[in-house]
């Protein structure tokens, strides 16, 4: 294997000219990350606020009024009164409201004292996550009101044990803060795999790869010439994404910038390596792009721990996530952004990323060498 700086330089120049003349690659490298970050940043939010809830009060009295007022004050609910449970159920099946609070029968001070005041909450369970969050919020409003009611009526305090929660790294539980780092991962996955998958597959398809191979350049020189310029483009996209995450979405960056970029560099290498591998194996733009999308975008979205908790997935799938570079990058970014330089998290994940990068690049190199012969 020969390695000549001169030849590599020439190949890099060729690649740069190609990039400059084809607006698509600049589009993928810089415009796509910015656009995606905008869409994801504004589009993805798991903070359910002002949930429409139907309220049916069968026997209105001061007590029910004060409870409904408590519900109204909560930032999580927007109550709509209904005359009867039938009307409210009708509204829920037309998805006008997401839940129904049904105060039926004896919801009075006497009822409360005897401990059998009926309080039923009916939620629309189709969106299970929102439903579960809603139940939690409701529980909070309910126990807050109980405490307040106990205090004003002079009754003894009703709750023996109280939970005092402290949430580290993201006290207000703003989902945007934890999603912004994840969005960067999706960005970088796409950029890396798409850039290379398309570029190399196109050279095979057009036959220019054969032309390149017939020159004295070595396989590794060709591979590096493909990786170098796109690496630079991808890191540019990374800088844009980080800038937007911090500047626009207010994600705190607690850890250091150089660790962040080191992680990004390793991740980009592994995703460029995967792109190279895909395009060397498939050799047609159509197939390479299909596979790149299937193998990168959706797994990074669903299996990386970006939105869905990996710990809760079934065993075989949890094992499978170890094969995805995105998984390590998500863990790194969430820690670097929100918790800081926690080396016990950072080092193993960096090691895993370097392993994946060398693995993909190694296989890509072997495959393209074999296809030479």
């Amino acid at each position, binding site marked *: 294997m020969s390695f000549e700086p001169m030849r590599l330089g020439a190949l890099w120049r060729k690649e740069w000219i190609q990039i400059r003349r084809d607006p698509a690659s600049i589009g993928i490298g810089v415009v796509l990350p910015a656009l995606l970050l905008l869409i994801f940043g504004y589009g993805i939010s798991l903070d359910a606020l002002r949930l429409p809830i139907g309220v049916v009060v069968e026997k209105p009295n001061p007590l029910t009024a004060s409870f409904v007022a408590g519900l109204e004050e909560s930032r999580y609910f927007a109550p709509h009164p209904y005359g009867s449970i039938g009307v409210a159920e009708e509204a829920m099946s037309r998805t006008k409201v997401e839940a129904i609070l049904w105060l039926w029968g004896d919801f009075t001070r006497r009822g409360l004292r005897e401990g059998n005041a009926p309080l039923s909450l009916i939620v629309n369970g189709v969106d299970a996550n929102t439903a579960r969050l809603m139940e939690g919020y409701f529980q909070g409003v309910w126990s807050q009101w109980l405490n307040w009611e106990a205090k004003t009526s002079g009754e003894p305090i009703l709750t023996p044990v109280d939970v005092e929660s402290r949430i580290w*790294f993201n006290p207000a539980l703003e989902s945007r803060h934890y999603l912004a780092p994840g969005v960067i991962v999706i960005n970088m996955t796409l950029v890396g795999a798409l850039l290379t998958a398309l570029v190399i597959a196109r050279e095979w398809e057009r036959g220019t790869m054969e032309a390149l191979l017939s020159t004295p350049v070595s396989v590794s020189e060709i591979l590096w010439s493909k990786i170098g310029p796109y690496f630079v483009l991808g890191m540019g996209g990374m800088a844009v994404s980080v800038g937007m995450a911090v500047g626009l979405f207010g994600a705190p960056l607690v850890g250091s910038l150089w660790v962040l970029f080191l992680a990004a560099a390793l991740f980009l290498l592994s995703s460029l390596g995967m792109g190279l591998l895909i395009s060397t194996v498939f050799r047609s733009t159509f197939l390479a792009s299909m596979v790149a999308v299937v193998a990168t975008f959706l797994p990074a979205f669903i299996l990386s721990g970006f939105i869905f908790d990996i710990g809760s997935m079934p065993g075989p799938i949890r094992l499978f996530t170890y094969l995805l570079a995105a998984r390590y990058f998500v863990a790194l970014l969430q820690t670097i952004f929100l918790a800081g330089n926690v080396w016990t998290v950072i080092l193993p994940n960096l090691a895993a990323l370097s392993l994946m990068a060398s693995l993909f690049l190694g296989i890509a190199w072997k495959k393209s060498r074999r296809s030479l012969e």
Partner: protein
Amino acid sequence: MRHRIFGLIVKELLALFRDKRSRFVVIGPPLIQLIIFGYAATFDVNRIPYASYDEENSGVSRDLLARFEGSQVFRLRGRIHSDDELAKAIDRKEVLLVLHIGRNFSRDLFASPPARMQVIVDGRNSNTAGILLGYVGQIVANFNASWLPLHGIKPPPAVLQPRAWFNPNLESRWFIVPGLLGTLTLVVSIMTVGLSVAREREAGTLDQLLVTPMSPLEIVLGKVIPGFLVAMGEVTLIFLAAIFWFRIPFVGNLFALYVGLAFFSLATIGVGLIISSISMTQQQALLGSFFFLSPAIVLSGFSTPIRNMPELVQWLTFLNPLRFALVVTRRVFLEGAGFAEVWPPFIPMALIAAGSLLGAWWVFRRRVG
């Protein structure tokens, strides 16, 4: 003319299915994704690793903590004996949650309730954190409810009775898998149709098509119909897998589901064709598909509710056919809806389909003319 279009359809289907790899790409990945994502895309939180930090170690505190050990949702990872260890355990992601009981817990409990249990949560994933705090609240509420009568204090005034319609155990798989029916169909039809014209342009076969006596309308139809057949085939495949593999209850009207998804596929095929006829190369077509696909999936309500988005973005989602398709699939699957309930989203999908197909035809005529 019918004969000619038929020929085009056969040609298009052959192009997709004759090549072994391309056949695999159309059939394999959607199924693999359905299986993996059907299992993985879950908001259900379980096996939550936690540690207990019991400074008092009394009968009551052990009682309370035992309720967590016995829970299906939590997994005890160890006990902690100092604040230092606590910080480390959370920082290093060894546990998501630490239950901290202070030294005066039982004194407070008997003399001046409420006694406090401190719960320290890793907020790096805010959704998980919110849900597991809900679980903690439930366990403590149960503890309270059983503690009161034991100590001669009247029971809590009312117990909250939550009940969930359509999905009684709140399984998020029931939410995600019907969603995948729309999402995966969208991906496949945009990718196959979106690249088809650009591929023929690059290969030069488009010019060959244009010199035949076929009109642009016939050529467009020759792209739309096979795309539609592939999309509906995909729908059937995923539908069967959802029912027989994932055992998602299907309580609605099958015909309504198919009609809704037919409008949806036509809309996506129209968008795919527009992208395809605008692009000069496959790379540009792919890029265009991406510029459409990623916002379409993110802004559809597939994984996160549309209601949480800023108002402006919510308006934007009305242009997204997937948004309406998801309403149809979920309501038909889980709520048992039929035509009477789900016809409203048919209208915007039909409008998007009509608009995009006419647009595709117009673009195609200009581009090749």
